């Protein structure tokens, strides 16, 4: 059976394609070294448009209006510029706001105004290995990779510091003080909006949580620093594989790319800790099938988030405590306990 994969890897070659949503200018070159926060491409995005109905305003036919229009597509116009003029009745049409002409026709002019610059950040530190013209680049790095399940869409990087001693620790406001300013913080569960606000006030450069209360999602989305959740929305300790790997990499530079989890695009929030290597480590395997011996993570109760080893695959369908019948396997937990889990509730860690 095909198995979903969660990457929690101490050392891997990581390749990430980063693309602008619309065409723009790529600002990096091949083999360039970039930091996670570096802007690798940018574009201007028009927040608003202004439609000037020349025909209606001048009271002429569409054909006549088209002849009276003076501007062309692509032209940049300052506020007050005359874009159409009827010499006979001495009436003119001025541009109400500075903008760029994006369409002309049908006796109308369409301007884009209120441009906003859109910057695409690298998201991971590394080397540019491919330029995708007008859209972005592929970045390669080597290091530890820890994927999560929820992110607030922000990117940043800094030294990682741990505030947790065990996977089920809870982050409270009193743990956040000025000494943490500018750091990426490894924390546990977050159940209090004040914690997120306090982290913003320091400010932190990143927050790695095991779980986040669903009620805090709106607040987390407003935060300007990246928040990555490793295990779930609700009450969940950090899975032991992520906890160990993140803990052992504390006091190292960590990039937190809190990209939202999108099953169809394949994007996930992730933490990357760049590590020096003499030769490229292997690429992570994205496609797996379940086989005994794999490290697996339980995705649903009663052991949601726990890591174990897949001991065997049961033939056919197996009755579960819920009464359902499904293809299942036995998983040995770190405690030595062996449990029965439907395969569909597992993901391979690797």
């Amino acid at each position, binding site marked *: *059976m*095909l198995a979903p*994969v969660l990457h929690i890897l101490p050392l891997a070659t990581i390749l990430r394609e980063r693309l602008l*949503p*619309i*065409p723009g200018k790529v600002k990096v070159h091949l083999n360039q070294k970039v930091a996670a926060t570096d802007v690798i491409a940018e574009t201007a995005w*028009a*927040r*608003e*448009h*202004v*439609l000037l109905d020349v025909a209606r305003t001048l009271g002429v036919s569409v054909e006549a209006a088209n002849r009276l229009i003076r501007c062309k597509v692509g032209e940049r116009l300052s506020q007050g510029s005359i874009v159409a003029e009827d010499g006979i009745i001495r009436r003119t049409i001025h541009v109400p706001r500075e903008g760029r002409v*994006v*369409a002309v026709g*049908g006796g109308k002019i*369409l301007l*884009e105004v209120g441009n906003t610059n859109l910057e695409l950040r690298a998201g991971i530190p590394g080397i540019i290995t491919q330029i995708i013209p007008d859209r972005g680049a592929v970045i390669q790095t080597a290091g530890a990779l820890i994927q999560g*399940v*929820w992110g607030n869409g922000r990117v940043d990087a800094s030294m990682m510091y741990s505030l947790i001693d065990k996977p089920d620790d809870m982050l409270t406001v009193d743990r956040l003080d000025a000494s943490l300013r500018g750091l990426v913080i490894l924390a546990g569960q977050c159940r209090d909006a004040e914690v997120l606000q306090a982290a913003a006030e320091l400010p932190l450069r990143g927050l790695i949580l095991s779980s986040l209360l*669903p009620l805090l999602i709106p607040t987390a989305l407003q935060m300007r620093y990246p928040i990555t959740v490793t295990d*779930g*929305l*609700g*009450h969940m300790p950090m899975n032991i594989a992520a906890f160990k790997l993140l803990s052992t990499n504390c006091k190292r530079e960590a990039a937190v790319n809190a990209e939202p*989890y*999108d*099953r*169809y*695009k*394949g994007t996930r929030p992730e933490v990357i800790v760049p590590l020096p290597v003499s030769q490229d480590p292997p690429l992570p395997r*994205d*496609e797996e099938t379940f086989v005994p011996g794999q490290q697996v993570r339980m*995705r*649903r*109760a*009663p052991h*949601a988030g726990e890591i174990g080893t897949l001991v065997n695959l049961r033939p056919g369908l197996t009755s*579960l*405590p*819920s*009464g*359902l*019948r*499904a293809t299942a396997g036995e998983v040995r937990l770190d405690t030595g306990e062996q449990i029965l*889990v*439907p395969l*569909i*509730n597992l993901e391979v860690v690797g």
Partner: protein
Amino acid sequence: MPASSVEGDTLLVMDVGAAITRAMFFDVVEGQYRFVANGQAPSTAEAPYKDIGEGVRQAIENLQAVTGRTFLDTDRNLITPIQEDGNGIDAVAATISAGPTIKTAVVGLLDDVSLASAIRLAETSYTRIVETISLNDHRKPEEHLDILLHTRPDLVIIAGGTDSGASHSVQRMLEIVGLACHLLPPEKRPAALFAGNQSLAKIVQSSLEPLTLTLRLSPNIRPTLDTEDLDPAVKELARLIPEIRKRYYKGVDELNLWTNGHILSNAYAQGRMIRFLSKAYGATKGLLGLDVGVSATTIAAGFNGKIALSAYPQFGFGENLAGLLQYVGLADITRWLALDIPQEAVRDFLYQKSLYPATIPATREEQAIAQSVARQALILALQAARRNFPQGIPMLKPGLLPLFEPIMASGGILTNVSNLGQSLLLLLDALQPVGVTTLILDQNHLLTALGVASERNNIMPIQVLESGAFTNLATVVSVVSSANYGTKVLRARLTYENGNETTVEVKFGGLEILPLPSGQIARLSLQPLRHTDAGFGPGRSGSIRIGGGAVGFVIDARGRPLVLPGDPVRRRELIKKWLWTVGGI
């Protein structure tokens, strides 16, 4: 390329769901079409595969393991037509529901005319309406344009103007849509469906076709102000959905080749089958089909050949599940629990299931939560769907569910249960049917398969339906009464084929089951008391022949609408009692 499904051929129907891909095999056995077996595999529409082909092939390979037949060659290509050695398949058809909810902008002229119809059209598929634009909307054209650019719909549905009626206003709307498409990068441009004034069809084609992912034209959904005709547009939309899905994953083109173009959206195929059956059986009551799927909860109500079809991704049992809390509170879900489970656990369940839509309950507690959530999702979907039911359909009392016979249900939460009593109670609680009805469970998800197969072969669905491939859960009598709790409201006598009789007196608030196994027929005589209505009119007696079911014959006198006790302890005890009665514990 395989031939289309024609009579006498073997048929393979692929159902590509958000979580599971099914391969269903139909063959002629002793001169009749039969459902033979199915094979399942996890769907591979999502990353890292982004190609439904792998899941399709794995499902077929699992079908091969079950049937001992060979459908794929050593290169995993479909063998077609069927070979002399019996390998291969004659015809293939497919339904698709996998993929994210389709962001849809709806454009019409008048809010309560073409726009309302266009919204109803959008609701027949897996859409989420992100914007509506109409003449009643007083925003400037450039504001409409900006909204379309911001929301980036996958699909734009354009309606408006009666045939040979308003055209200038529709053209103004078209101009906005065209401009938005022009300004979007080519790979982000939406698909479009035009279902308005037919005199504009050529203009629409020339102006929008070069600017859209794909453009489809359908007959006007409002040919006159007073008439609405959604059916042709619903079909066009059903064919458009796989085109939109191609943007998210590969494999649709190959499946299109295999099926010779016989791919439909899952919801449409279900609706098609319900309409077909409602016409074939021509009953005075309606026929209700429902599917609680990962992509959406779909409600299809057929009324003598007319269909009211609604697909609600927001009430689906997958990635949108956490969004259910925008419509109801946690207490609305926990009220259905027989176990004392904290609301926080239910909230965690919703979010965890949203993160991992394909996962299943492994514990008794999680299964109880899942079934409670399903009850509430079905209640919401049915409430929304009822707005689209036609006027004047038979019902016992305003506000209650119209009379349906039968009710056909599918979806993993209903079919993947430890015992069928749980499915029965879930359906009774959520639907609250009235009068006499039969509850049928589609355990193999055949309804959509038959819906797409019926495009070319209208004998097969009837033969498969009559072959016992569906599970009769129970014949149910649900009474409507204003009697006091605990007073007698119904006397029922069941006369079996062998002449034996069972009689029961049912008190208001009660839930009773009489044995009547599947395949058996009995005569049911009902004598309502105290103006109670058992489907024959208030206080009127009646007698009918009924069929048996997996759970038996059920009398639901718990009241319509069903009111649960406010006290949580008493409520849980009562639900436990009901579960015990239907054999659900």
